[in-house]
């Protein structure tokens, strides 16, 4: 009997291991951060931000209108003219270093709040988002007093007031991407976080206030699209930086061009992840998983179009399905969760519509048999085989954990197919052979191309896209030049 029992093995599930929330401090209500102080919105209106994992309300957030935006821009202009513009780079750098260190000090609190507000797993907010945020501030802090070395033989000068609008997929990280280089170059900012994920930006405002940054250098106004539009349209905003969807990006581009403002846009993508037949298959499968299921697929550069060389397609798809079985979908606060909650009900609906569309288009659907919590917004990791280049699910950005798989025979064919997209943000190539990697990467029309890895970010590495994925680069030296005359 005992022998029999042994052969069957066991089912070993991990008990829940929730990250504690007792150490975080959240207010019931958050006002606008203007001129170094939290001030009530002109309209008196507030909206709720919720935890997408449970649907519970986390806090009421002030809704800024044109008057509030004007106030914020004026505060930024005043700080720019009176203090920040003339401060030495070395002194500006000190403030940025201080912000970076404070973020490290409060890393756990930021990670938990990010998870609560955005639905992303605590593993990612703890191990990816927050450390990268600190790294960004450290990196640009280092450049603040070395700008003339970064751009030799050029007189570098700050732009003035930057209006920055960021998305909900990496709320705090996007704030860091925007604020750190702007401040390092001597600009002041008015930043608007996304309406579904404003909390970490407001916590960052508290941190910036605690760091003693001069009043008005960073202003954070919360609200919906109209608040963002007010920032873009404000005549005293010199530069607009936007990360978000392509339709909104196009609109911002139009306004910015009309008004003669400098502008950088980091928009959507439908990035190709290409597996060649000599690739290390097991590691490539990990790369596929990381490419599309990282942050529930809410990644502008997600590897959402998979291209697998024909002769290894069966084995790759089999291994991928097998690997997906071991992904844990659930409470994002659980340290063992691999895939957390979809950011909002609206986004979940969009994803479901696309999954439905995929089925209607005749693609073959696969989802693992994993348990999904009853409350909150969750979506199983999904893949579609039998997909054509002309399928809408292979053309349009879904922004969720949905992967389409196509096969190819020759390298020329895959280059053509990968580039045959209105987007051009990122791509991944997997091969054991360096020459094949470099041949492909030089021919792919994408801002970022990863070789034998995916979704890897570093402050020193520029990031941005071609075509409908936007223009301008963030990160590295390129990120600095976007904030200098």
């Amino acid at each position: 009997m005992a022998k029999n029992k042994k052969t069957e093995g066991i089912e070993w599930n991990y008990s829940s291991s929730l990250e504690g929330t007792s150490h975080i401090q959240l207010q019931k209500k958050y006002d606008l951060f203007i001129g170094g102080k939290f001030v009530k919105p002109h309209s008196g209106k507030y909206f709720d931000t919720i935890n997408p994992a449970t649907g519970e309300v986390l806090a009421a957030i002030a809704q800024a209108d044109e008057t509030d935006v004007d106030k914020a821009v004026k505060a930024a202009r005043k700080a720019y003219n009176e203090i920040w513009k003339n401060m030495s780079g070395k002194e500006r750098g000190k403030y940025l270093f201080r912000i970076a260190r404070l973020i490290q000090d409060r890393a756990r609190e930021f990670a938990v709040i990010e998870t609560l507000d955005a639905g992303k797993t605590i593993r990612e907010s703890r191990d990816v988002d927050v450390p990268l945020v600190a790294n960004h501030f450290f990196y640009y802090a280092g450049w603040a007093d070395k700008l003339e070395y970064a751009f030799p033989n050029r007189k570098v000068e700050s732009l003035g007031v930057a209006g920055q609008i960021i998305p909900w997929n990496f709320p705090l990280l996007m704030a860091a991407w925007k604020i750190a280089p702007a401040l390092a170059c001597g600009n002041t900012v008015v930043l608007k976080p996304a309406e579904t994920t404003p909390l970490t930006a407001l916590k960052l405002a508290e941190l910036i206030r605690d760091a003693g940054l001069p009043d008005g250098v960073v202003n954070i106004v919360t609200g919906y699209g109209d608040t963002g539009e007010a920032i873009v349209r404000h005549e005293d905003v010199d530069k607009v930086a936007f990360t978000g969807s392509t339709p909104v990006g196009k609109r911002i581009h139009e306004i910015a061009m009309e008004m003669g403002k400098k502008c950088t846009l980091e928009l959507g993508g439908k990035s190709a992840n290409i597996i060649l037949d000599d690739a290390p298959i097991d590691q490539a499968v990990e790369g596929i998983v990381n490419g599309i299921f990282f942050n529930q697929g809410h990644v502008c550069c997600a590897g959402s179009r998979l291209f697998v060389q024909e002769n290894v397609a069966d084995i790759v798809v089999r291994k991928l399905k097998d690997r997906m079985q071991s992904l844990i979908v659930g409470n994002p606060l659980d340290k063992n969760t691999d895939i957390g909650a979809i950011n909002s009900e609206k986004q979940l609906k969009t994803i479901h519509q696309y999954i439905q569309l995929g089925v209607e288009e005749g693609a073959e659907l696969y989802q693992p048999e994993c348990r999904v919590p009853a409350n909150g917004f969750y979506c199983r990791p999904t893949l579609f085989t039998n997909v054509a280049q002309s399928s809408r699910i292979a053309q349009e950005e879904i922004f969720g954990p949905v992967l389409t798989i196509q096969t190819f025979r020759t390298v020329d064919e895959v280059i053509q197919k990968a580039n045959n997209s209105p987007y051009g943000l990122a791509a991944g190539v997997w091969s054991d052979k360096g020459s094949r990697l470099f041949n492909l990467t030089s021919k792919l029309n994408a801002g970022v191309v990863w070789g034998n890895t995916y979704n890897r970010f570093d402050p020193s590495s520029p990031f941005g896209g071609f075509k409908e994925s936007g223009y301008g680069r963030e990160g590295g030296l390129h990120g600095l030049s976007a904030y200098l005359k």
Partner: protein
Amino acid sequence: MRSTVNKTEPIDFSQSPKVDKVGVEERVARFQTRSLKGASKLQGLKLALNMIDLTTLEGKDTPNKVRQMCYKAEHLHDSHPGLPTVAAVCVYPSMVKVARESLRNPEVKIASVSTAFPSGQADLNIKLTDTKLALDNGADEIDMVISRGKFLSGEYNFVFDEIAAIKEACGKSRLKVILETGELVTLDNVRKASDIAIYAGADFIKTSTGKIQPAATMQVTYTMLMAIKDYYDKTGIMIGMKPAGGISNAKLALHNLVMVNETLGGKWLTNEWFRFGASSLANDVLMQIVKQETGIYQSTDYFSID
């Protein structure tokens, strides 16, 4: 029982799947962030305890030392009831007889290293005699070493044939094949050697002798688990895995079990298919089990060191 050699198709081991070290490191790091608490931790600890091959492989081993270790194998910590035994004891062929006489519980197997362990620098005839000695003295399992020199010089057929010959000598006894991954250096080599051992008839593949560093790193074990997985997917035949050397604490053992659970699945989570080759691991696992069940974290002086 599986057949000695898979003769149905010729296999070119130089074409074994490629392994990307950076990717493996990333994957392995993910297993290490799994958080085990409460019941699942206790279950994992008891499982780990039951998978240990309690080992002594030293020139200075004496019959009495082996007797004491055999007693410990069956009585891990009698003051704390409800504990499993270890899976096996692992000794040199010359000590198998002593172990056979000492062990009472048939659940605890005797594994013996052979084939001129640890270097494997001997003629096949000597290796076969060594193996036969261990089996005649009552060993249940044989842990052989491969000829690393031959492997590194590309003589894969030699390595294959040697394993097949020892497997034949083993008869119904299970054969573990030690790759000594610390001498193979690259993960590509580890994968290749795993494939050779599996196709040549190994029942288990094992990382190391414990005499060479690095030994059972998680990267190496992961690479070997994927070789086992690919073979299972292809043939439906299960192969066992034994990381040995360097797994000296409960946390590392649990990380290894998480890795097995998420690659090969629960089917492998039994000592029939997964073992730890270790000497000091047992006491650390015992310490953690006692801590989990009583809430008291005792010092090492409360656990016997046989």
